């Protein structure tokens, strides 16, 4: 496999860009048919910044992140189109989508330069190895150090993520850790090789608010210290509001809106984004919630035209027939909705 270098990239302008996903499509080929889990997703990630990915279950958030990490089984899921350009510290950008998922090159990057934290710390940690062993495994795989040094590093990582008595805890097994501590151990493992990109897939969903706050603070503090880029995947808009710089909203495998966090909250454009915000209980807001009607269709019930049309309060004839393209909505924002097309006569004023 060889790295692809797009001639169009202007290197002086793009120094900050660390990951560039372009029109990514990941389809599952299963007995019942083809599931378009990720269907044309594009975004860029800058060093030191946080990209939030929101959407309800079944919107393709997690498949997007697993595609970037190349963790999906090739017998089930295939990248049918698009590119995932990763910009290493030195050298040409690498298209992760073109790499062999079992090859040397992706294994050098995965866990080392791009690391991931999963939602369920209990199922992502191996119960038969000590926590320290599992952190050392990542270190020994990617760095040329002795076992003693790796162990020292593992203890340091546990200390960094705020686990008390790390010298003793390092030899304990996952079942001896509480839920919050397991998630900290996962973070310690993910950060052990100083990744340049951290993908956090619902990292606080299974945790209590107090532990959630500890974990979010920890991630943001590490990010501030190391210029690490973060992709935060969550269904919780409050978490997005706290950590994200830029947000993409996904619905049925597509990006329906992409905008800086303030625009998402203050002037949401896509009816789905507006619906999500109106569904969200916000402390201090007294109005009644206005939920989106219906629920996300199943993977084999994808509607014609705009995927959101059957649930959209502003649906027009055109929406049921043609799929809307991503329209430029601002300096840094796009929206995939016919309401914002110049050819469309009805203009909807948000708010």
């Amino acid at each position, binding site marked *: 496999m060889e790295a692809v270098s797009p001639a169009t990239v202007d290197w002086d302008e793009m120094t900050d860009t660390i990951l560039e996903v372009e029109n990514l499509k990941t389809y599952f080929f299963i007995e019942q048919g083809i599931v378009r889990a990720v269907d044309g997703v594009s975004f860029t990630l800058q060093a030191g910044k946080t990209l939030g990915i929101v959407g309800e279950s079944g919107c393709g958030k997690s498949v997007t992140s697993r595609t970037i990490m190349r963790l999906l089984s090739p017998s089930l899921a295939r990248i049918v189109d698009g590119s995932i350009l990763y910009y290493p510290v030195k050298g040409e950008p690498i298209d992760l989508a073109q790499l062999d998922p079992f090859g040397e090159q992706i294994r050098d990057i995965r866990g080392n330069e791009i690391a991931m934290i999963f939602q369920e710390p209990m199922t992502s940690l191996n119960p038969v190895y000590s926590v320290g062993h599992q952190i050392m495994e990542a270190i020994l795989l990617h760095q040329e150090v002795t076992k003693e040094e790796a162990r020292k590093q593992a203890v340091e990582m546990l200390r960094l993520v705020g686990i008390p008595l790390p010298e003793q805890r390092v030899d304990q097994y996952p079942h001896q850790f509480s839920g919050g501590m397991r998630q900290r151990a996962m973070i310690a493992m993910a950060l052990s090789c100083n990744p340049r990109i951290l993908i956090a897939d619902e990292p606080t969903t299974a945790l209590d608010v107090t*532990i959630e706050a500890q974990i979010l*603070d920890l991630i943001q503090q590490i990010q501030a210290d190391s210029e690490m880029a973060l992709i935060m995947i969550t269904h919780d808009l409050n978490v997005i509001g706290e950590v994200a710089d830029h947000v993409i909203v996904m619905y049925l495998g597509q990006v329906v809106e992409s905008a800086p966090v303030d625009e998402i909250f203050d002037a949401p454009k896509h009816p789905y984004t507006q619906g999500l915000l109106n569904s969200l209980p916000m402390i201090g807001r007294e109005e009644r919630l206005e939920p989106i*009607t219906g629920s996300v269709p199943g993977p084999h019930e994808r509607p014609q035209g705009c995927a959101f049309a059957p649930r959209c309060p502003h649906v027009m004839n055109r929406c049921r027939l043609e799929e809307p393209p991503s329209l430029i909505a601002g300096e840094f924002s796009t929206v995939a909705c016919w309401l914002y097309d110049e050819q469309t006569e009805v203009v909807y004023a948000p708010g």
Partner: protein
Amino acid sequence: MRPVNPNGSDTILAIEDLRQYFPIKAGLLQKTVAHVKAVDGVSFTVASGETVGLVGESGSGKTTIGRCIVRLYKPTDGSIHFSMTDGMVDIAQLNRNELQPIRRDIQMLFQDPNSSLNARMRIGDIIAEPLEIHGIGTREERRARVNKLLDQVGLGADMHNRFPHQLSGGQRQRVGVARALSIEPRLVVCDEPVSALDVSVQAQVLNLLADLQQELGLTYIFIAHDLSVVEYISDRVMVMYLGKLMETAPTRKIFERPTHPYTEALLNSIPKRVRGGHRKRFVLTGDIPSPVNPPSGCVFHTRCQYAKDICKTETPALRALPTDPQTQVACHLVEELSLQPYYTADELRNLEADHV
């Protein structure tokens, strides 16, 4: 329809010094070696028609209280008085047969609609089952009642013959609501009823619960870990920690003027958008201690940033604030502390302007 309690402010439930200890057994002979003190001396009352939110971290005992009220557990000690037509009845120690008539009045809505519905039963039969158990109506009357319930919870009559796996998560939770309401209870214990649902569906179910309360005069005990959901639905909030009640107050006051350091810590932990940078907050360190061997004195003192010597030795009683009898708090230091509310100073000013 049975008549709704005509006087809305009547006490429907009065709990006094409730304790639920679970034995830990070990060894060959399974001797009891210790107890998990899941609920350890909790007292409160609930007025008819109100919604009480029960919050706290996992392990605080909120679900155990709910299960004691519907008598899935037999409490170790204490009383649970429930208002029946012939006055208040202590249901804490009643046996199975004695409980039968009371079960009509107290129902529970469970968290996970996937595991709380029998996968082999049709939706119509699931909703009709409580009616059958209590011997209400004829077959036809029950069928008519089920159709009305399906309509009330926003599902069509065509759901009758479907199986749970054919429904979405939100639809399944609506079936759970219909089943809980089928025998016209007066008190519904909702145990994390929306936490397994997506945001848009969560909002649909929350609105449904609020509408049904208006329509049927229901009283809810709403257990949830998501404080924004609790704020939306509750009239009053009770904050629990390690099996004890730390603070109870009207919802608005909890968020605008918390009086217990643990409440303050919870409010500070809620993720929140603050324009132009990171929110400055203090974070509660460590985990909740083990309920097998809770700390001495105030159970929160090991994690409390204000703790003094007295907190380590003496257990604070839950007492009403002299300035505000609606707020009850269990803290020695309540008079000297000035705690940080959920809102920033600017937000508070705006809220006050709104209220006026």
